[in-house]
Structures are given as C-alpha cells and as structure tokens.
C-alpha cells in the first residue's frame, strides 16, 4: 500500500485503522507506510470511506484554520482525498496479501480466508472422522501478525511430533517438504496478518500435540490461536470437551456444525446424501 503525497492532507485518520500500526505521520506532516510492517491487508483502502477533495486546497485550508486555532478533522472513518493507493505486488511480497486480505481467494484452496473450510463443511466432506481431532492453529492472530520464519519454526516442531498437515491448506502448499514441515525459503521474511496451519491426529494424541504447540509457541515472536475439532457421536455429544477440560483448557466457546449439509451436486431436485 502507498499513500499519495500529492493527495494526503495529513489528517491522520488512516493511522489508527492499520491493524499492524504500519501507517505513520512523517516529518513532512503527511501519512506514510512502513513497508516492512505493512502486510498488504488493504484494511485502510477497503475500510475507510472516501471523499474526493483536492489535496492542495485542503492542505491550504488546514494550515489557514490552524492559524486561527481551528482544525479541519473529517469523520474518523474517512480519507478526505482518497490518498490510499494499492500497489501491484510481485512475488514474494504478494504472499502478504494472499494471507492478510480475507477478500482474496487463495489459489491453493479456492476459498476466501486463511485456511480451509475445516469442520464447517464436515457434514459433506467427512474430513474429520469419528475418533479424529482436527487442529486449526492460527499464528499471528489476534492482530499481532507473524513472519513465515516463525511459522516455519512451528511447523517443523509439529512435523517432528508426527503431525499430518492438511494437504489443501494454503500454508501446506508453501512447504517444500510436508514431512519435515519446512517452508520455502524465499518467503520466510514475509510478514502476514495471520496464517492457519491445519493438522489431523487421533483424539488420544490431542494432549501431546497441544503440549507441542504450547512449547513451540513460547519461542515465537507472536501469538497463537488454537481451535480443536472432532466429529460428534450419534447422539450429538463429543469426547473432546472432557479431554480438553482435563488438560486445563476452558472450552465455553465453539462452533457447531449442525449436520444440515447434503451432497447435492448432480442430484435431481437438489436432494442428496449427507456424509
């Protein structure tokens, strides 16, 4: 992301909206982007409303008002001169946007966002079966960001524990070797808002994998959000909650797939089978 020096009037509205704190007011009193900190999430460009005022006259008006101790301050969600300008990104910087902007579709998964559909479509995919546990480990969330060099450290530690990474996950697609969890070198110094590593184990392996995640997390320069899933029993209950509680985890919040999905492609009348 760039901010046009011609258009910017230095109102600073874009400074707090950046999730990475990458926008600042420079010595010229105009906004600028710290390219190293920017993860190309487009939050500033997409989230701010635009008024198309001309930069020059607004800067002049701001200076004039300042002389009489008044201030021109637009609404806090507004860039008065449409000064934000997205850049054409090239490899490897384009990886930042692919993982940070939720409105971009990942080529590897064909869906928006940073991971896969995991158990949200488990009623039709059957991805996580009875007795399985699916891990969704998100690095950099909430709101801290992560370099792939830290993700690489974590995926290698998890691979060492025998984790089987989800093949269709965007981070897995960036590994040079899924057995070692090693991520390709040319993106290790790229920073993203967050990225999701998905793996599957048997339920009895959950405590060991959680210990491994906790251990490697202490060595990372970021935060980690963890989700653990399983398929429910026939009566809708699940053995995972008790298992997690036994490990000392709070488990009051979850998402529940209600089993309403149906494999319907190619079926007459749109009716089909549930997984």
């Amino acid at each position, binding site marked *: 992301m760039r901010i046009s020096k011609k258009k910017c009037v230095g109102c600073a509205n874009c400074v707090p909206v950046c999730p990475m704190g990458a926008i600042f007011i420079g010595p010229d009193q105009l906004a600028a982007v710290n390219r190293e900190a920017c993860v190309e999430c487009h939050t500033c460009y997409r989230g701010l409303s635009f008024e198309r005022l001309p930069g020059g006259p607004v800067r002049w008006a701001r200076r004039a008002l300042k002389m009489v101790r008044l201030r021109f301050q637009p609404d806090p969600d507004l860039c008065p001169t449409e000064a934000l300008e997205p850049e054409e990104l090239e490899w490897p910087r384009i990886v930042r946007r692919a993982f940070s902007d939720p409105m971009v579709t990942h080529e590897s998964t064909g869906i928006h966002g940073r991971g896969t559909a995991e158990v949200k*479509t488990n009623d039709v995919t059957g991805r996580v079966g009875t007795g399985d546990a699916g891990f969704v480990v998100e690095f950099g969330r909430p709101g801290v960001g992560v370099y792939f060099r830290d993700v690489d450290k974590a995926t290698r530690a998890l691979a060492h524990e025998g984790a089987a990474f989800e093949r269709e996950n965007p981070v897995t697609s960036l590994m040079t070797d899924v057995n070692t969890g090693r991520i390709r070198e040319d993106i290790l110094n790229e920073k993203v808002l967050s990225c999701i590593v998905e793996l599957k184990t048997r339920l009895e392996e959950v405590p060991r994998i959680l210990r491994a995640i906790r251990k490697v997390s202490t060595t990372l320069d970021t935060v980690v959000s963890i989700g653990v899933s399983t398929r429910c029993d026939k009566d*809708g209950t699940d053995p995972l909650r008790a298992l997690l509680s036994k490990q000392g985890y709070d488990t009051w919040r979850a998402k529940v797939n209600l089993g309403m999905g149906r494999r319907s492609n190619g079926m007459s009348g749109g009716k089909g089978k549930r997984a």
Partner: protein
Amino acid sequence: MTNTLHRFGRPETLRDDYIVFAMTSKGINDEGAIEKVQAFFRASLKHKPINMGNAVINPLYRPEKDLSFIKLYFVGRREKIAPETFIAEIAALGTAAVVFDNRGAMADFLKDLQELDLGLSVNVSALIDDVREVCGEVHLTPHSVEYSLPFEGDTTRLPEREILSLTTMCGHGMIAANFARKMVDSVREGRLERDQACRYMAKFCVCGVFNTTRALRILETTVKGA
C-alpha cells in the same frame, strides 16, 4: 477460516452473541447454491439479525467510496444498506453469516432452516452450552464441533481486555486495536455517540460478523469503568 471462533471474553460477556453461517463445498454441494444462500439470508430477516455478510461483497455496514460535500453535510451518510439490497448483490459463494443478539432469534432461525432444508452446511458459533440446549429444543443433532482454546505465545503483545473483546469480533483482524481505542476515547470524551462508534468499527469487518449490540455493551462498560 476460523473468523468467528476466537471471540475474546468471559462467558457472561458472550451471552448476546450468536453467529449462524452457511457454507458450500466445491464440487459437492455448490451447484445452484447462490439461490440457496440467498434463501438462507432471506429466511433470517424475520428474526431481525443485527449484521450479515459473506466475505465476498461488502456486508451491511460498509464504507462509502463516493462521498461529497453535499452528501456529507446535507444528504447525510448512508452507513448501512438494506438487507434486501445486500442479498440481491450476492453473485458468488462465500461464508454466508448472520449475527443475532439473542438466543430466541437464533433458535427460531434454526427451526426455519430445518424446514427449508437447503442442503448447505450450517454452523453456529456461540457459547457451546447454549448451542447444545437449542439443538435439543429444535431437535437437531450436532455433527461436528470445534472448540476455541485460550491464546498462546507472546500474549504480552495483545491489547487490553476490553479492546481485545472489540477487535476479536472481526476474526480476520480487520479492526485495529488502535482504532478501537480511538473509538473508546472519542466516546469517553463526548466527541462520538456510542452507537456511531460501533457502526464505524463494524464497517471494517468485511465478513459482517461484528456484533454491534455486544460492542455497544462493551463500550458502555469500558467508558463507565474509566
């Protein structure tokens, strides 16, 4: 994607937060699914959802890209579009999400979805005990469940609890902690109405899963506690 899973807060602060969302799976149930997703959204309307979105087009609360002096100072800003307009705009599949601020509305919506039998994968993201209770009431059997665990790693880098409660209502991290702080400060200093601050934050959440009712309550508690 786990955009609604890790909403920060104690259970008592999450009692007005229910997200119901529908997804399709490519090659399995995506044929003719746009109409089904539109039917999902339309069915939600009678239960008065407080937000909705699908992460492909802008949600109900959206930035205005064509503001002018006339619009700003005479016509007035249009920060939320009509749900029917949003539904009509849907042309591609994403995660169709609707947010409710009460358990009853969520339960009634699930009942309607059962009758509609759209064949979409429907999930509820909320307090697990509430969801299980509602499932019992409307005779639904959960298929799969995903639990949110506490944050790990360098948690000293996280913002203060109240701010985190606001920012994590956009799971993709589009609501910056500094912006949430600015909203809290502006309300505290009387420069901004509370509901206006909530609307400003909601516009940054592209999936439409930001709960404005909960945000209002958090803002009120935070400002009062200062």
